[in-house]
């Protein structure tokens, strides 16, 4: 997984808070929530694309965590434990909704429209940087299976072997889904963003003030 974020100065480390929470200290529960809420909520929001669902899942993840906190013995980093729990909560939710996840016999057509591959043709590049809003929209339009793998790997920093274990698929499948997810995102950005030199995808210069088609 990606490196943990540095501790915020002035905030008690997790181990102290966990010990206090295990003794029923309400402030410790609050502090643990404050320290980890953004990461958990962002994961839930990115995987579901829906604010209300993300809030419910965040609640569920923290409730499960706090209910089990007495069993935490410090074998792994607390944030890793919490994060893994949150991922499981989200995936369980997506499975219950019947949204397609990775299947072992994944074909091109089973995850939405076929991906247009650039085989020695178009040399258009995406402009400058990809902004947060565009990224949110683009990921929101990914099929659920692609979205899950992309978020777990590129956003959350899980390795393919970890993703394979979480999503009950092969490492090869995880890699393949990630690649397809990135190609789909590229296709989306090409359809929705300016080309180099300020021209839109039709090659025309758009009216002043318009940035996207």
């Amino acid at each position, binding site marked *: 997984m*990606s490196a943990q974020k540095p501790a915020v100065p002035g905030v008690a480390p997790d181990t102290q808070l966990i010990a206090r929470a295990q*003794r*029923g*200290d*309400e402030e410790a*529960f*609050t502090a643990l*929530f404050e320290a980890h*809420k*953004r*990461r958990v*909520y*962002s994961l839930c*929001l*990115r995987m579901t694309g829906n604010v209300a669902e*993300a*809030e*419910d899942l*965040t*609640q569920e993840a*923290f*409730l499960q965590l*706090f*209910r089990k906190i007495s069993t935490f013995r410090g074998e792994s980093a607390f944030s890793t434990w919490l994060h893994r729990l949150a991922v499981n909560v989200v995936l369980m939710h997506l499975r219950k909704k019947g949204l397609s996840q990775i299947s072992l016999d994944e074909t*091109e057509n089973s995850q939405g429209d*076929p*991906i*247009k*591959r*650039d*085989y*020695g*043709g*178009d*040399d*258009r*590049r*995406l402009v400058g*940087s*990809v902004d*947060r809003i565009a*990224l949110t929209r683009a990921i929101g339009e990914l099929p659920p299976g692609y979205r899950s793998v*992309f*978020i777990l790997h*590129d*956003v959350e*920093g899980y390795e393919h072997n970890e993703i394979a274990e979480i999503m009950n698929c092969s490492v090869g499948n995880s*890699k393949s889904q*990630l*690649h397809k997810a*990135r*190609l789909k*995102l*590229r296709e989306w*950005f090409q359809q929705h963003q300016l080309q180099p030199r300020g021209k839109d995808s039709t090659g025309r210069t758009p009216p002043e003030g318009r940035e996207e088609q």
Partner: protein
Amino acid sequence: MIEDQHEEKLNPSCREFQASLETYLEGEGGLPAHAGKCPACGALFADLALIRSAAETWPLESPAPRVWSNIRARLETEGFFREKEGFWKRWMAPFRLFPSAAPIGALVFLIVFAIFLFSPGDLYHQSKSGSAPALVATSVAPATLTVVEANLVRTVQEMEKSYKTREAYLDPAAKQTYARGLTSLDSSIRECLASLQAQPQNTLARRYLMQAYSEKADVLASALEYDGR
């Protein structure tokens, strides 16, 4: 399929490069010269790297305050929070001899409280033999609340505070039903208190009062847990 036709038209260098694209993006092995020579493959690699970089630096978002309110309310209802210990208790903590007494003590308290709440015939004890009943006055509580009763009242007040923050997020039908239920219970609490003020020894009124608080706690707990079902 169209992709198959494209793939057939692909030159071997491009095909080889794109087959290993994932590896180059992961930073395993150096980027081959083909990326610099082929505009399409170069653009593809640059774009995917850009997307990956954007994903890695995607800023985090915070949930609405109600998320913690709901979590806190659930934890409180489930008894996760302990009262803050005073200086003396904290100091004495290492000397506690019977740590396991706490759950037993809680159980005894609950049994006593339950007996107090639900025992029939507060003032009258009826003989089963069929003869005239021997009247055995139960312990009549004083006009002021007992410790047990005061704890229940305080718990209900805390739950009501949590409910106030949650109330706005209930669907209208649920909100209306809970509001009506709580109004009825509040009305019965007021009447019971008025009866007890006029007749402090009225154990039936006291029983109704505690029953109303207990039911109010149940309704508030239900409202705090309500998620649509």
